[in-house]
């Protein structure tokens, strides 16, 4: 995985940054994800990838992996110490493996 393919203009990055910086927005996102996504000029591919928790596609679109780990903590509702399960979900997605807890978990 290289950092050279990052798309610095990707709107999804703005979404993650705003969610990190604004607890109220994060709360709204948990309650009504679509309403928040509607306010961002996401491409259809980005929006679908977010809705489907498809990090492989997000990364292929140029999403920064470091923000991926942080976004995973929000999307998989696991922002507690270590956030191990969120990272495992993220890894399963970018490796195109079954999600943890459904058969072959990607336990590290």
């Amino acid at each position, binding site marked *: *995985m*290289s*950092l*050279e393919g*990052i798309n*610095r*203009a990707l709107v999804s*990055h*703005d979404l993650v*940054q705003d969610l*990190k*910086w604004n*607890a109220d927005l*994060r709360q709204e996102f948990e309650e009504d994800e679509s309403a928040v996504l509607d306010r961002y000029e996401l491409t259809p591919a980005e929006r679908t990838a977010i809705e489907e928790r498809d990090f492989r596609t997000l990364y292929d679109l140029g999403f*920064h*992996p*470091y*923000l*991926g*780990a*942080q976004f*995973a*903590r929000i999307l998989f509702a696991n*922002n*507690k*110490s*270590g*956030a*191990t399960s969120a*990272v495992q979900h*993220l*890894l399963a997605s*970018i*490796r195109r493996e079954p999600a943890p807890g459904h058969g072959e978990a990607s336990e*590290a």
Partner: protein
Amino acid sequence: MANISLAVAASHAPGLIGMFDQAPRESQQVVSSAYGSLARQIREADLDVIIMVANDHMANNRIREYPDFIVGMAPEHRGPAEFFKDWLACDEYAIPGRPDIAEKILNGLSQRGVRVSATRENLNFDDNISVPVVKTEIEASGVPIIPILQNVTVPPFPDQHRCYEIGRQLADLIENDLPSDLRVGLFATGGMSHEPGGVRDFWIDEDFDNWFLGLLANGDHDKVLAEVTLQRLEEAGSGGTGELLSWILVMGAIGERHCNVLGYTAWDKWRCGIGAVSWDMTSAPAGR
């Protein structure tokens, strides 16, 4: 002339606080010993300020407007930032800043050709500052800090040669621009091998980490600069291992000095190789 009275470096994995008790006993012992040594050194060095050279994890800027360096000029540095509190599971801290010295660092680096940003606001701190501050008891020491957050993950960013050169510029400004009796500590935080959010997350390149620590202990900085390339850092963990560039910046500031490796351990759930070193600042540097 102000002088660098302490120079240390250590990793900052978030799990070092919240997941500490779950780690194997041997890893706990290494961390307690190494960070305990750093805490003692900080306490005993009679410092006026600690410049913390840390990595910015995209906590303060959008990545399309991303500075290479941000100097924290706030009168007080508080953390961790809200989003990271539960993740780090660490207590809140408030550490005095030194806006007067931070201003001299901003202008001193600028005048020496280093492009730096600065803010008077409280920066968002995640594990980068929070973990070393908590693990080495900086708040209790009462020593003010100045964070310098560094881009090591949004390309292009300064490579090992440039970081080393910027370290030299930092040393020059400490020597010439800061108050003559000031005792300065340098604390590099970041690394060791890890790939946060990447396909190899949880993997730790122990061979790389031990090789890197061996290079530091050996003390030949030309060899470090020749071999610890951006490509080599990337191979040992994309987007994470490059945090060791902060260590190289501090090495540039102090020159070749005896490096004491305080410990190293790797536990996969910490998702990062954990190492710490201190350099001997009591004698004159070699080759200067």
